[in-house]
Each structure stands twice: as structure tokens, then as C-alpha cells.
């Protein structure tokens, strides 16, 4: 089984980008001067998380870079640096670099390593203390070729193994292989010393077959194998950090044959015994050819809680074993060969079987416990352990994920029973200490193209409410099903109830699903502090950015598509709107300009306002420019609104100078096109010297709209309810023809062009052609009104928009299609597009025509 890391990696990228946002916004909040500890801490944490996560995925470049940044931040929070503009700027740069590296890793593209390394060098220059462990993190140099495709780390977990390495054990059990627990347990058992050895030499076979090939078991160390003597004296309080000697011993046993001798010297009498203290000392013999560091690593966590002495054993020969086998006064070694011992062996089998996982009380808790002895064999049990589970059961329950080993019957011949427990231990060993030896092979698909589908993170409450609603839907469905059985007229009210309930469920479910696509606008707004910071530095202006309504939610697609237009508008406001500090002072304004981004709901729309308190639009200059570009006649007298309209014309710019940022006349038209493509509108309010406000109105969602069905001939079209101003019966005397080109309808003080839909769509069958017999639907799009002539209005309903573009092709004047209740397809009309189409057909340039009309009105 390999863990699928792709998903986790995706998560890491998302999270890192959030962390980078946090870093960025906190960096921007930092004020020059003394350290704001809370802020720096939070920046540090974010950098730290990125580093930690990156390490797991072996993104060494990220780790190395983040480490330097983190070190600087660490120094900052320790108060070693003051916050200065250069530091902030550099750290912001670091955020950018990290973002760049991460995105190149995510997209599997190359990134500019020279920039990375340049920034890294600059970061290092700030550090007070030279970096330790430089080599460990690896200096990043430009020449280093770093593959953009990370080694995704699929992790091979051990396949459950049932292979038990054949233990080679002498047929004569000379020693009692005691369970690992024994050294810990015996001392607190007053009787144990008489019946049991106080110290136990424990043979633990390693998987190496060479172990225990000698004719004696346990005490006879295998010849010609290097080993280690470990004197381990835990301090009294070692247990208080949750470390348990038995775990350490098990680790050691995983390295090779291990002998464990406990020194019970310091165990006080029962009455003086403190349950939570560790009174035992151990002498361990590890017969394994391993480096000292491996052993030290095992004791790493208790380093300062014990006295540890690790000395290498000379290469052992048979003679050398004598001293070990010698029984010192206080340490008895269990070495018997009597038949009685075969039972000990049997019983020890249980403990061995049990040992790795059976819950025994912590060594010094004072529990009087004994060597487990099976009840059922009935012989030689010193003190039967209450409820000693049968070995086979124990095995099954313990061997999670592995095939149960063959049940071990407790009563066996001594030979067999000696072997089996060892067989069990060795199999456990090969499972336990180094279970993950499998090679970490790169995933086969790691080189595939990056995931294309974008994901969305949804609050759990939204999902819960969805589940809840689906539950209700199921209830309604079953209720309707009940009604449907043996239906007769008496059940009609029930059916009606059910259907109205179904309608409610559907609506709520729909709203709920739509909510999933909704994201707070802060996702988009949050990039602006940085942008404004950078721009204002660049322009030498002082700007305060105010964000409000950041929790206003809008559709993810809308949000994404709005991103660029918003950036453009913010840039414009900074570049052209807000004046230089001196100029502002001169006009009696505060030096610091205010840029306010505000989002809120209004009706079925979201309004985003971008306002500044800058110079405002210079209408006279717009007029001059419009005349210069022949968009306006000198004698025309356009209204303010009409003048602002020029701003959205391609190639129109009033800027004296083309700057880096804006002023090329490219942009506002694109901004408006983007907004329009989302079904939104943009309008300008501006007062000279007081500032400008852009109002962007966007639909809540793109997927569903409140639609008005209209009929033209046999066709049904859909208009967005929001675009409809009013519908009226045409009074023929109010219709005027303009030079044979267009018809206009005089509505109160306005002249509204009439667009006969049947004409536009070439519908000839069954349609009303007489204006007074149909209806005129006055709609508004892009600030222009138009009257659509239709046969009749049908119902209003919520329309699920199906894209025409993706299924057919883009059509001007049509924004999409939907499937009606009867299964037929209806087209959704795009008012702004229709207006353009209308002007195009009538060969009237859009602006001029509105003008003429407006003026003549």
C-alpha cells in the first residue's frame, strides 16, 4: 500500500499559499521601529510551517530558502533587529520568491534560481549569527540544477508479512528466555526473588540467522560478533517523561541479540517504594555489529535522564562468555535444565508472545505482577497470572494487519514450545523496529502533467447544511412515494403538500449548493495591501488602504475574473487618482491619500466600490481628448455620464505621460469588457478635487439567474429579471421613426430604441408584427436602455444557465441557454450584446447614436 501523497501535496500548496498570504499581510502591518512580537511570531510561524511541510515533500529548495528567512524572523522576534523598511521589503521579496518556487514546483515548471539565490544571499547578509547546519540545508547555488519535479514521496508501508524467519535455536533450552518485562516487574514482586531470577538474561534473536547458532542459547553469545555493553542507569524521574525502558530495550533487541540484566540493588522495601520512580539499573549486552551512534540514537530521548555508558565489546569468543554467565551475588541468572524449566519455557512463551504489546503496568507502579503462566497447562506455574489470555488469542488480536500466526498451543513439547515463542518474537521484530525498509520509489505518475482541475475549500458548515438538506429531500421523496401508492383523490392535498415541500427543498438545496461556490471577497482584496504598499513606495505617494465588507461572498468564478479588473482600477487610482503628497497639501488635503475598497450586497447583486480621495476626473480634459480623437463633435454638449463613457473607450487616455503603471489607454475598456462578460456593470462617479468612485455591480452568481420568459412567435427567450426595468403596451403614437433607421419609443422624457426581436432572430411564423399587439420590455444594459418587442411575457423562474460557448459557440446577444421544464431549450438574451447588435445592424455607431438621441431628447 502506498500512501497517495498527491492529495497531501495539493493541500500543502494551498496551505503554503495561505501561509504566504499571512506572512505578507502581517509584514505589511509591521510598523517601523521596535518589534511587534505577536506579528513577528505569526510571520515566523507561517514561514516555519512552510519549511516543515516542504521538508516532508523533499522540496529542499523551499526548505533551504525558508530556513534563512525563518532564521532572520527568529532573530527579529528575539529582538535582535529593529523593524526597518529594508527588512520589510526584503522579507516581502522573500515571500514572493517562496511563492515563485512553490508555484514552479506545483506547475512543474522551471523557476529563476538566480533570483532565489540572490534573495537568499541578501537575507543572509542580514543575519546576525551565521547559519548553523548550513551543509545540512544545502547552499543553493545558481549552478545547481534542481529538478522542478519534486520527488513525490509515496510511502511504501510494509506489506503484512507472515513470513517468520526460521529461528535457529538449540534443542536444549538452557536458559529461560524471559520476557522483556521481567526485569521491570520482578523487583516489585517480593516473592519473585525466590522463585524467579532477579535478573534475566534475555535472548532475543535477531533476524540474522547467525545469531544463536551456538549450541547453547541466550547466554552463549554468538562468536565473532562485535557487540556493545550498555550500562543504563535511569534517573529516578525518567518515567515522568513517558519514556519506558522496555521500549528502549525493544529497539535495541531489534538490532541484534540482546541480553538484559537488571540490577535491583536500589529497589527499596515495598513500604518505601515510590510508585513513579525508576529504581532499576540495567546492564545490557547487545550482540550486533552496529555503529555506536545507532545505539546512542535509541537513547537520544533519555540522554539527560539517565547515566549511560556504551562501550564496545571485544570480539567475543566462547571463553569470553564465562564472565557474563557468572552469577554474581545479587544477580541470579536463570540457567536450569530441569524438566521443570520446560514449563518455564512454556510460560515464558506467553510472556514473549505478549511482551510486545500487552499492557503491563509501568515498571514502578508498584503493581505486584508475576511472570505469566498459563492456567491450562497446570504445571509448574509459580503464580498463575490472572486472566492470562491464551497465546493464540493474543496473537490474533495483536497482529493487526498481519495474518495471524499459527495458534500456539500452550501445552507442547519443551522443544516445540521453546522454538515457537522465539519464532513469534523474531517475527515481531521484523515487523517492529524497521518496518519501512521498502525502497521509496518515485510514484509512477509523478511526472504526469499537473492537476488541471481547480479545487475549492469549503467551510464544513456549508457541507453540513447540504447534507441536512439532502436528508430532508429524501424524507420528502419517501413521503411522495407513499402518496403515490394507491393514489386516489382523497390524497390530493397530501400530494400538493408534498410537492410544495419538494419545491422548498429544491430551492434550499440549490441555494445551499450555490453557497459552496461562494468565497469571501477578501480572497481578492487581500492582495491589495501589498500592491498598494509597493506602488505607493514606487510612486512616492502616501496612501492608506481601507478594506471593508471583506466577508461579502461572491461566486468563485466571478471572484477570479474580477481579480484583474480590480487590480487595474486600484493601480489607476494610485497612479492618476491620488496626488503627490505636496500637491495634496497644497489643496488642503491630508498628505495621506485614502483608497477604499468596499463590497456589499444590494438586491441580487454584489457591489464593489473602489473610491479614492484624489484629484477626480478632469472632465474638460476628457472632452478635449474625445474631440481630438474625433469621438465627439466640438459643438456637442455631452452630459457627465456620457463623458465618463469615453474613459471606457479603447485607446482613450487623458494621461499626459505614459507611466509604467498605467496611462496607456489600454485597460478601462478591458476592465469593462471583463465586468460585462460577468453580467456586471461599472459606473463612475467623480468630483474634481474630491476623488473618484467606481461602482461595479456584479451578479451573485453566474450559474443561476432569475429569469423572465418571453415569447416571440413560437420561440421562448429568457431575460434576466435584473435587466428589466418595465414592460408596457406600446402606444403607437409614442413611436417615432428616426430617419428610417430606427424606431424610438418616447417613454416619459426618454427616447428608447425599439428592437423587434422577431426581426433580429428572423422569426416569421406566428409572430406579432404590430407594435400595439405585443409588449415592449424595457431593459437596461451597460447604462443604455432598449425596448425589446416581444409577443407576450410568460412566467418568471430561476434559470440554470448552460453555457452556449462550451457547447456551441459564442453568439453576440445571447449569453447562454437553459432547459425548460418541458425539456425544450430556450436561449438567454444578453441585453448589452443585443444593444450592440442593434446598433451594428442599424449602422449607427454606439456612442454617437446614444448621443444624438440623448441630445435630441
Amino acid at each position, binding site marked *: *500500500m502506498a*500512501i497517495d501523497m498527491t*492529495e*497531501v*501535496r495539493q*493541500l*500543502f500548496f494551498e*496551505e503554503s499559499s495561505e501561509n504566504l498570504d499571512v506572512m505578507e499581510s502581517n509584514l505589511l502591518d509591521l510598523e517601523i521601529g521596535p518589534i511587534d512580537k505577536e506579528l513577528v511570531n*505569526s510571520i*515566523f*510561524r507561517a514561514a*516555519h*510551517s512552510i*519549511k*516543515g*511541510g*516542504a*521538508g*516532508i515533500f*523533499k522540496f529542499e529548495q523551499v*526548505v533551504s530558502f525558508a530556513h534563512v528567512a525563518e532564521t532572520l524572523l527568529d532573530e527579529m522576534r528575539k529582538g535582535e533587529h529593529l523593524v526597518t523598511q529594508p527588512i520589510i521589503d526584503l522579507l516581502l521579496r522573500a515571500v514572493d520568491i517562496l511563492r515563485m518556487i512553490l508555484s514552479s514546483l506545483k506547475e512543474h515548471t522551471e523557476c529563476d534560481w538566480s533570483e532565489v539565490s540572490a534573495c537568499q544571499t541578501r537575507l543572509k547578509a542580514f543575519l546576525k549569527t551565521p547559519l*548553523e*547546519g548550513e551543509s545540512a540545508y544545502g547552499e543553493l547555488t545558481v549552478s545547481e540544477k534542481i529538478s522542478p519535479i519534486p520527488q513525490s*514521496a509515496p*510511502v511504501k*508501508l510494509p506489506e503484512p508479512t507472515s513470513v517468520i524467519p526460521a529461528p535457529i535455536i538449540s534443542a536444549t533450552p538452557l536458559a529461560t528466555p524471559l520476557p522483556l518485562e521481567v526485569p521491570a516487574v520482578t523487583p516489585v514482586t517480593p516473592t519473585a526473588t525466590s522463585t524467579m531470577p532477579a535478573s534475566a538474561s534475555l535472548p532475543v534473536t535477531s533476524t540474522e540467522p547467525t545469531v544463536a547458532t551456538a549450541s547453547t542459547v541466550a547466554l552463549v553469545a554468538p562468536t565473532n560478533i562485535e557487540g556493545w555493553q550498555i550500562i543504563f542507569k535511569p534517573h529516578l524521574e525518567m*518515567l*515522568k*517523561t*513517558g*519514556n*519506558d525502558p*522496555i*521500549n*528502549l530495550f525493544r*529497539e535495541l533487541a531489534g538490532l541484534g541479540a540482546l541480553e538484559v540484566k537488571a540490577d535491583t540493588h536500589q529497589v527499596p522495601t515495598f513500604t518505601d517504594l515510590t510508585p*513513579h520512580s525508576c529504581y532499576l539499573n540495567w546492564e545490557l549486552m547487545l550482540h550486533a555489529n552496529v555503529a555506536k551512534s545507532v545505539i546512542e540514537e*535509541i537513547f*537520544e*530521548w533519555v540522554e*539527560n*535522564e539517565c547515566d549511560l555508558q556504551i562501550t564496545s565489546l571485544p570480539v567475543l569468543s566462547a571463553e569470553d562468555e564465562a564472565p557474563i554467565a557468572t552469577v554474581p551475588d545479587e544477580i541470579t541468572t536463570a540457567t536450569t535444565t530441569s524438566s521443570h524449566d520446560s514449563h518455564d519455557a512454556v510460560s515464558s512463551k506467553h510472556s514473549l508472545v505478549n511482551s*510486545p*504489546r*500487552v*499492557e*503491563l503496568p*509501568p515498571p514502578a507502579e508498584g503493581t505486584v505482577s508475576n511472570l505469566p503462566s498459563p492456567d491450562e497447562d497446570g504445571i509448574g506455574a509459580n503464580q498463575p497470572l490472572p486472566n492470562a489470555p491464551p497465546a493464540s488469542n493474543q496473537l490474533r488480536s495483536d497482529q*493487526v*494487519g498481519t495474518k495471524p500466526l499459527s495458534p500456539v498451543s500452550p501445552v507442547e513439547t519443551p522443544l516445540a514450545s521453546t522454538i515457537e515463542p522465539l519464532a513469534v518474537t523474531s517475527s515481531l521484530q521484523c515487523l*517492529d*523496529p*524497521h*518496518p*519501512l525498509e521498502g525502497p*521509496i520509489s518515485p510514484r509512477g505518475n509523478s511526472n504526469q502533467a499537473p492537476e488541471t482541475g481547480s479545487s475549492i475549500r469549503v467551510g464544513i458548515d456549508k457541507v453540513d447544511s447540504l447534507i441536512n438538506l439532502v436528508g430532508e429531500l429524501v424524507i420528502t421523496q419517501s413521503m411522495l412515494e407513499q402518496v403515490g401508492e394507491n393514489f386516489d383523490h382523497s390524497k390530493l392535498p397530501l400530494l400538493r403538500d408534498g410537492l410544495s415541500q419538494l419545491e422548498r427543498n429544491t430551492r434550499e438545496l440549490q441555494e445551499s449548493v450555490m453557497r459552496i461556490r461562494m468565497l469571501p471577497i477578501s480572497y481578492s482584496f487581500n492582495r491589495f495591501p501589498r500592491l498598494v504598499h509597493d506602488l505607493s513606495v514606487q510612486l512616492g505617494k502616501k496612501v492608506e488602504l481601507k478594506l471593508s465588507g471583506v466577508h461579502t461572498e461572491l461566486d468563485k468564478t466571478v471572484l477570479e475574473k474580477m481579480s484583474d479588473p480590480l487590480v487595474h482600477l486600484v493601480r489607476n487610482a494610485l497612479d492618476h487618482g491620488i496626488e503627490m503628497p505636496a500637491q495634496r497639501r497644497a489643496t488642503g488635503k491630508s498628505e495621506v491619500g485614502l483608497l477604499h475598497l468596499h463590497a456589499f450586497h444590494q438586491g441580487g447583486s454584489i457591489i464593489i466600490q473602489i473610491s479614492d480621495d484624489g484629484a477626480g476626473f478632469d472632465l474638460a480634459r476628457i472632452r478635449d481628448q474625445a474631440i481630438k480623437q474625433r469621438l465627439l463633435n466640438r459643438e456637442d454638449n455631452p452630459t457627465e455620464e456620457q463623458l465618463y463613457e469615453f474613459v471606457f473607450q479603447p485607446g482613450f487616455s487623458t494621461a499626459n505621460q505614459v507611466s509604467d503603471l498605467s496611462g496607456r489607454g489600454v485597460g478601462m475598456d478591458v476592465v469593462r469588457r471583463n465586468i460585462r462578460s460577468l453580467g456586471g456593470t461599472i459606473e463612475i462617479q467623480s468630483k474634481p478635487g474630491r476623488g473618484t468612485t467606481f461602482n461595479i455591480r456584479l451578479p451573485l452568481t453566474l450559474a443561476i439567474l432569475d429569469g423572465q420568459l418571453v415569447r416571440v412567435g413560437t420561440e421562448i427567450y429568457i431575460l434576466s429579471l435584473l435587466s428589466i426595468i418595465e414592460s408596457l403596451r406600446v402606444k403607437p403614437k409614442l413611436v417615432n421613426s428616426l430617419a428610417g433607421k430606427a424606431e424610438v419609443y418616447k417613454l416619459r422624457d426618454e427616447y428608447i430604441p425599439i428592437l423587434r426581436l422577431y426581426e433580429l432572430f428572423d422569426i416569421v411564423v406566428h409572430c406579432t408584427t404590430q407594435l400595439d399587439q405585443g409588449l415592449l420590455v424595457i431593459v437596461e444594459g451597460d447604462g443604455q436602455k432598449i425596448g425589446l418587442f416581444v409577443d407576450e411575457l410568460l412566467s418568471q423562474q430561476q434559470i440554470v444557465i448552460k453555457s452556449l460557448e462550451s457547447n456551441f459557440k459564442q453568439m453576440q446577444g445571447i449569453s447562454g441557454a437553459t432547459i425548460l421544464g418541458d425539456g425544450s431549450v430556450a436561449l438567454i438574451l444578453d441585453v448589452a450584446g443585443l444593444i450592440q447588435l442593434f446598433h451594428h445592424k442599424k449602422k449607427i455607431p454606439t456612442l454617437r447614436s446614444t448621443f444624438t438621441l440623448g441630445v435630441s431628447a
Partner: protein
Amino acid sequence: MTYILISDDSVSMRQMLKFTLAEANYQVTEANNGLTALELAKQQSYDLIITDVNMPQLDGLSLVRELRSLPEYQFKPILLLTTESDPEKKQEAKAAGATGWILKPFDPDKLLAAVRKVLR
């Protein structure tokens, strides 16, 4: 069943821990900060707690101290996830009562080895 509580403010780190541990048949519960971890630990007894050091609300070291003051967790293994390799930090961890530490970055093998080292 062995119950492990993991506490980390990073989702990916939690996922990583959870995946690895769950694959090894441990029962894993997640907490996204120290405070939550402490609350969870009080509600149910866990055999092992693995916690990040840098966390909002309640950091890893404080969590260890809090846990050690509870009778239930006086002797339970608690491992810290840390990137700090300097001995000073390690001593701080030990002083707080941590059983041991897992150095980040770690791979699943290392994690499981460390876990097995403290679980019976």
C-alpha cells in the same frame, strides 16, 4: 486499538501524520491547535500524543506541561514535532515533560519508528 492524538496547525502536516499513522493501523484524532488538543485529551484517553511546537493559542511546550499535570497523562508518551535541532531546545522540550521529539522534516518511516519507540 492504539489511539493517537495529533496536534498541528498545518493541515497538510496533519494529513501527512494521519495518513501515515492510519496506514499503520493507529486510530488518529486531529487537533488544529494546542487548546483543542488539550480539550480532546481530557475527553478521551490517548495512548500517544504528537504535537507541533509552534501553534497558535497554546504552543506545543505549554501543551505538554498542561498534559503532564493531568493524572491521565503523567506517564503517557508525548512527542514533539520540531525543526529545532539545537540541544537547548531539546532540553526545553524535556523539561516540559516531552518523551521525545521528531525532527522535521521527517519521512513516514522516521515517524513510525519514533511512534513505535514509545508505544508498547
